[in-house]
């Protein structure tokens, strides 16, 4: 398992392929489910130009590791990966990648969704949006899944 924070833009599909190639023995899994969240250009009815993602160094990483460990207790996973951006993020850039590997699809699908929902509700990240008009605002709540 791995938890990775990226202060600069990262390529989630490349990271996913690289992780699988280096961490999972060929033939070890029958399923991989992944989710990629990206920076959109609208929120709460307003045009958004970008955002800053703040985190609590030390606490955030540990929380993500605990969420991965919880998923591995609940589902028969072979491996799991969380990658999350921090810092300045531009429109269209990936924010988060979650991925789970298992023998069969149900565990991967369910655990991958769990990682995202747990991360959004528990992990200490905070978004501050830059609006197209030049002002900025803290995002006060997450959108429903």
């Amino acid at each position: 398992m791995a938890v990775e924070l990226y202060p600069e833009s990262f390529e989630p599909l490349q990271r996913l392929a690289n992780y699988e190639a280096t961490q999972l023995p060929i033939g070890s899994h029958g399923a991989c489910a992944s989710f990629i969240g990206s920076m959109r250009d609208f929120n709460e009815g307003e045009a958004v130009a970008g955002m800053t993602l703040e985190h609590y160094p030390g606490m955030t990483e540990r929380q993500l590791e605990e969420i991965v460990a919880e998923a591995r207790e609940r589902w028969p996973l072979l491996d799991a990966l969380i990658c999350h951006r921090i810092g300045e993020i531009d429109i269209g850039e990936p924010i988060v990648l979650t991925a789970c590997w298992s023998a069969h699809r149900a565990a991967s699908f369910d655990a991958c969704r769990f990682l995202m929902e747990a991360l959004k509700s528990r992990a200490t990240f905070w978004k501050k949006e830059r609006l197209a008009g030049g002002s900025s605002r803290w995002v006060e709540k997450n959108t429903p899944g």
Partner: protein
Amino acid sequence: MAIKVRFFASLREDTGLDHLEIAANDIAQQGITTATDVWMAATRGQPLPAQALCAINRDHAELGAAVNDGDEIAFFPPVTGG
């Protein structure tokens, strides 16, 4: 020893505080026993926002939870990652 206090996101901006320490003498003299007491002492009585959350030593905690000398107390708004 001391209590280390940290503020994140909108609470950092609203209070104008990033981090500070409350000395051991002040902990005793001001009767600081809970995270809410820490907030009041650190911000010099600024109102505690209704949505404020806290962590003690990097674990989520209740605002009424007990604090001890040497702890790191963090205050922050609801999380919005992902």
